[in-house]
């Protein structure tokens, strides 16, 4: 682990930055940077927990593996972001994942939405993947080298998530009458939670060149989404946005149940390892 203290920018394709390396970094992020890492880490963590539900329940074994892979990618991103955030407060990734209460989580409402049927999960995946790709492909230029390194690894994986959800949107939308009906319904249920992704918060002003301004991602996201919808012969759902607040710790009813399941083992057996 002697290399672990190396700069986070020393990242190569075969030697991507790992959470274990981040934990040993000598630099500590400023509080605002850590808060921002918490945003991104919590999004990834809660989404991964949601996706994990599909394991053993996907339509086919192959799709089971695909969704599990995506969930594991997200857990990887969450581990890196949370580990880095924790450096500011002398907390580990596990402290942050397992021992924070619901109002302390900073994830957006979109990722805590129920899986619904496969089409609804795919609709949520499409939105998340397009958003995360736009975000990470800009965060690679962050003034913070650790955030940039985490984004550099994540953007390649999210590129695949984008492709996976796009392929399924096309097949469901252009498949049978029933699959199309479900795809349209899934998009409609997902749409109210899109707006929150692009809402700026005062924290962004503090970050300067370190973070990515959410509102700046809206136009490229819309263009990317429209391209998929056009190909799938779908229309943007005409439903208003829901009230957000995830970045302020205000969550929908779903997060409590997700956290109960996520945290129960670590809280029942503090310090246990497995």
């Amino acid at each position: 682990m002697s290399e672990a203290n190396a700069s986070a920018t020393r990242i190569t394709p075969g030697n991507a930055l790992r959470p274990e390396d981040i934990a040993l970094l000598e630099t500590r992020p400023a509080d605002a940077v850590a808060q921002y890492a918490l945003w991104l880490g919590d999004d990834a963590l809660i989404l991964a927990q949601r996706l994990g539900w599909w394991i053993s329940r996907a339509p086919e074994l192959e799709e089971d593996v695909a969704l599990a892979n995506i969930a594991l990618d997200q857990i990887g991103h969450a581990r890196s972001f949370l580990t880095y955030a924790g450096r500011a407060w002398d907390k580990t990734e596990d402290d942050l994942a397992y021992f924070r209460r619901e109002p302390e989580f900073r994830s957006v409402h979109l990722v805590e939405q129920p899986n619904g049927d496969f089409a609804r999960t795919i609709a949520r995946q499409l939105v998340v993947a397009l958003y995360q790709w736009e975000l990470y492909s800009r965060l690679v230029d962050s003034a913070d080298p650790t955030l940039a390194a985490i984004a550099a690894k994540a953007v390649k994986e999210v590129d695949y998530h984008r492709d996976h959800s796009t392929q399924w949107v096309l097949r469901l939308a252009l498949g049978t009458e029933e699959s199309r009906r479900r795809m349209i319904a899934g998009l409609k249920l997902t749409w109210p939670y899109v707006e929150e992704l692009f809402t700026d918060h005062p924290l962004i002003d503090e970050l300067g060149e370190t973070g990515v301004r959410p509102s700046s991602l809206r136009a490229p996201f819309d263009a990317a989404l429209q391209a998929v919808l056009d190909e799938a012969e779908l229309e943007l759902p005409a439903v208003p946005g829901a009230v957000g607040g995830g970045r302020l710790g205000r969550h929908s009813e779903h997060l409590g149940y997700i956290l109960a399941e996520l945290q129960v083992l670590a809280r029942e057996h503090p310090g246990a390892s497995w």
Partner: protein
Amino acid sequence: MTGGSTTGDDGATAPSTGLQEARAAWPLWEVFVRSSRGLSHVHAGSLHAPDAEMAVRNARDLYTRRNEGVSLWVVPASAIITSDPDAKDSFFESPQGKDYRHATYYTKSEGVKHL
């Protein structure tokens, strides 16, 4: 996709007939992977996928998880013509005893260099 798949958090499932039909609709594909050091694609296994594009993606997820490959082929299993397992004798035992088909059968002639 299934006509009526698992419907999510409520745990309800569709009647099994829909699921059976859907399973039958996903054809089998054979997967070939070329490793970074390999010169040719080697058969890795098989999988189910609704079409060729998804088959390549499923192959990526199932057979290249540990950096195994740099290139993937998927072939519809139905497109592969196999030898008849019952015709093993006549198909594969003929070379036995025909040692002259191996280079080692021959002795070097006197004065021949660079062999």
